[in-house]
């Protein structure tokens, strides 16, 4: 009897366990989060089931005063804007730095490419916490950078490098840079470099060749890289926790707080839904872009 005569049974038996695990511990918890975001808040840390309302969402912009009046409070919204700004900054730095690296990689011989890909990928698989911790050693008041500058006599007292937005941006770029380099590399790798030669033969300058030939062909990889850097930066928790201070909280830390000291689960859930929404917008804009590009490609 051929294996394909009972495909349905095998399909359920084989795919079923993984699908069930994902539903039970991923999809259902996310749906529950959506449900909790519109429930009442239990001040002891938990949920008042059935007290449906949108308090958690209005809290993003407004604050209920002690006397019951509602006032505009943009402190939480500022954290969201800061997260978007820092992620956009990380994305831009990664793009500007990552592009020449990807171009260098794509123009090497096969042998060197494999080595370079390995070198770009390797740090990604090492511990994120440890990689961010290493930056504390560099950026501290008596860290490597400050000590070196003091020793060289460039500065007379340590620069405040740690616990600010710059430190977070450095950490985020450091954490997610491979996600930018690799997709750009994979689009550049497919380029027929005779096109570049042809462009020079037609008296184009380097700048014109870059703008008219290479960049359009690398565009899909650049968009993919931007999404792959932007999304994890937006939801990062460890980097702002370690390298940022109290003034550089990001959405991830604000969410985390609601399940620790602040004990406000519905608000935490609402923030989680908001972050999901932002991610969804980023991903669908990418999917649409990708489709348009694929059509142009045909």
């Amino acid at each position, binding site marked *: 009897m051929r*294996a394909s005569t009972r495909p349905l049974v095998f399909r359920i038996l084989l795919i079923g366990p993984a699908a069930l695990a994902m539903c039970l511990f991923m999809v259902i*918890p996310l749906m529950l989060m959506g449900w909790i975001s519109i429930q009442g808040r239990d001040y002891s840390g938990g949920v008042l089931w059935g007290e449906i309302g949108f308090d958690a969402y209005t809290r993003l912009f407004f604050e209920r005063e002690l006397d019951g009046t509602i006032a505009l409070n943009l402190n939480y919204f500022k954290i969201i804007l800061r997260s978007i700004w820092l992620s956009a900054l990380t994305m831009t730095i990664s793009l500007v730095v990552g592009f020449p690296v990807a171009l260098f990689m794509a123009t090497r011989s096969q042998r060197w490419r494999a080595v370079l890909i390995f070198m770009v*990928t390797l740090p990604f*698989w090492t511990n994120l*916490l440890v990689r961010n911790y290493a930056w504390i050693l560099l950026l501290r008041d008596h860290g490597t950078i400050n000590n070196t500058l003091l020793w060289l006599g460039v500065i007379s007292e340590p620069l405040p490098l740690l616990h600010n937005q710059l430190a977070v941006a450095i950490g985020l770029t450091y954490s997610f840079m491979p996600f930018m380099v690799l997709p750009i590399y994979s689009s550049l790798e497919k380029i027929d470099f005779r096109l*570049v030669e042809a462009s020079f033969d037609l008296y184009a300058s*380097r700048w014109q060749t870059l703008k008219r030939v290479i960049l359009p062909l690398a565009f899909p990889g650049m968009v993919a890289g931007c999404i792959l850097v932007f999304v994890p930066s937006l939801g990062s928790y460890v980097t702002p926790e370690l390298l940022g201070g109290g003034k550089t909280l990001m959405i991830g830390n604000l969410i985390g707080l609601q399940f620790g000291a602040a004990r406000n689960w519905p608000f935490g*859930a609402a923030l989680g839904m908001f972050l999901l929404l932002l991610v969804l917008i980023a991903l669908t804009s990418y999917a649409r872009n990708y489709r348009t590009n694929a059509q142009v490609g045909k």
Partner: protein
Amino acid sequence: MSLPGFKKPYKGDARYWPGIFIATACFFAYVYMPIIILIILSFNENRTVTVWTGFSLEWYALAFENRDIIRAATNSLIIASISSISATILATLAATRMATDKFNGKTAFNAMISLPITVPEIVPAVATLMFFASLGFTFGLGTVIIGHTIFCLPFAYLPIRARLEGMDPRMAEAAADLYANPIRAFFRVTLPQILPGVLSGLILAFIISLDDFVTTFFLGGAGSTTLPIYIFGLVRTGVTPEVNAISSLMLLLSLVLVSLSLFLGREQSR
């Protein structure tokens, strides 16, 4: 000037573009410098951590004597082993059908299994926290293992499915024609062919689980402290040389494992 990878001098050649070599060199310095400095400082005999005074293995010795560190390392290994093996089994089972069958909901399944890599980790972590709390679960090793198994799934699933899709489907059909039952055909024909992919996926899942902080932090409880959680606790109170030593060991372990996994991956693509 002769640099590695350069072949022939030609002005219009993109290989020769000014700055790209320097940009790449700076990039790799940026990527590897912090890691190298961390490892160097872990051998520093001085307690102030950042001023080099001499070579010492003292901090490694202290780390290995510390009971809390040993316990955290044991927890990390228990969690990573159970989660990566469960994730690999689930992923292999699903991938064998996903690679060959066409059915409604296939895209939905692929989207669902990729959720842990598309959604920032903090979101599923707190969602699962609320889910477990609502069900009255006790937070500890068990909840952490469930959480890890879920986010390890795509890391195990993707390389295995890629390997299966590259396999000749006629092999399994031939086995069936020769009266092998499906289980026998899987163990005798399919599995030996995809084994490098399975091992590569298993190792990647293991590393991801070993290095995880966010999910462990939110789903953990008393007695489930892992090395990253322990390091995080120490870092928040201040930088100590012991942290440098454990961190360097963790880096080294990841580097060895990922090299092994990539090596297996390369072997299979030949």
